[in-house]
């Protein structure tokens, strides 16, 4: 399961929607086996557009849980100094380097085995063979 996927996963329990704690899920860093896949190609424009759609706070939170403390608290901005909105062709070298790092984190980094839980109901979900299982047991379904 790619790191980026964590930005789109919440608790399956319907009642937790009424809390503010069902997203992101809490990842147990010590129980998560992290793998890198360097074959995933870097596409700056793709990543810029993806970044428009992510919840940055959730990325920072999950990265910390998995042992990465290096992210800035606010989402990196790539557009304000370049007139045209969000086009990769205008990026400076520094900006490209930042994007490249994010590419490694969001798209090349995966959780192969591990678990995560809801911050509200504490239900634990498992990741096995790279596949998270968000089905609920009958008593919660």
């Amino acid at each position: 399961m790619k790191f980026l996927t964590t930005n789109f996963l919440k608790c399956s329990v319907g009642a937790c929607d009424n809390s503010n704690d069902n997203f992101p899920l809490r990842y147990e860093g010590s129980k998560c086996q992290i793998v890198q896949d360097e074959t995933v190609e870097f596409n700056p424009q793709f990543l810029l557009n993806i970044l428009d759609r992510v919840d940055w706070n959730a990325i920072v939170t999950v990265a910390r849980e998995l042992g990465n403390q290096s992210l800035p608290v606010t989402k990196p901005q790539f557009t304000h100094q370049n007139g045209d909105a969000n086009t990769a062709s205008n990026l400076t070298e520094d900006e490209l380097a930042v994007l490249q790092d994010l590419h490694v984190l969001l798209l090349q980094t995966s959780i192969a085995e591990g678990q995560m839980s809801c911050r509200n109901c504490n239900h634990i979900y498992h990741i096995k063979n790279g596949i998270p299982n968000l089905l609920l047991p009958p008593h919660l379904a």
Partner: protein
Amino acid sequence: MAEQKEEEYVHKIYNEIASHFSETRYKPWPIVTDFLEHRPMGSVGIDVGCGNGKYLGINPNIFIIGSDHSSGLIECAHDIDNAYNVLVADGMKLPHRENTFDFAISIAVVHHWSTRERRVQAINHILSKIKSGGEALIYCWALEQRSSRRGYQEGMEQDVLVPWVLHETKKEKHSSSDKPKKLKLASAPDLTNIPLKERAAFIANWRKEEEQKRLALIKEEAKEKEETAKKNTKYRYYHLYKEGELEEDCVSAGGKVKGSGYEKDNWYVVVQKQ
């Protein structure tokens, strides 16, 4: 109850037939492919009921998360390409926040919910996950498929159990054909102690007995074959959509129908979230 029916005739079955089913699901349908190829670069979407993930790799410039209730099918997807983003989840309890995705697809899935209310609820749930203005492409099996192998057509019952015949695994094939079932019939009777003049009658009788043995054997084999077929036939529940019905369900679910049509024995609708 609806949930129990779906558990028995959908969820359980797909795990039982997962690998065989997956072998038959490799050809992407053109209109689905076209829809995916027209999503803008960096779009984020979901494929609800993605099965073995045949639509997850169509457009490398979008981020698409596939989910299915069947862990068996999700494992098939992961085995086909471990770059696919897949997860096991209930289509009625998708683990995504609302108003998040640019688009959704759900190909030949909604027809598995066993009441109209639940099918509308399922479409509504998919729409809840996409942003306002975002589009979902939804396919359901058509009642009108006169020319197909199944031959369903107008006027027939819409709520059906559709057989899936599993092919025998190699192991089963081996053991059933390997059994020394065809017990070697003697090619001639033993006439050692039979007086000469009784031999003709004895041989006639022997032939009759051998023929009866042979017929009994054929009958037994046929019965065995039938039992195997029965054991290997799994039934899945479907609601066969008649023309116009999917549009109605999409509107009931709060969506706006942007386009619709028929492809590969299915009705499809492009529905926009208001």
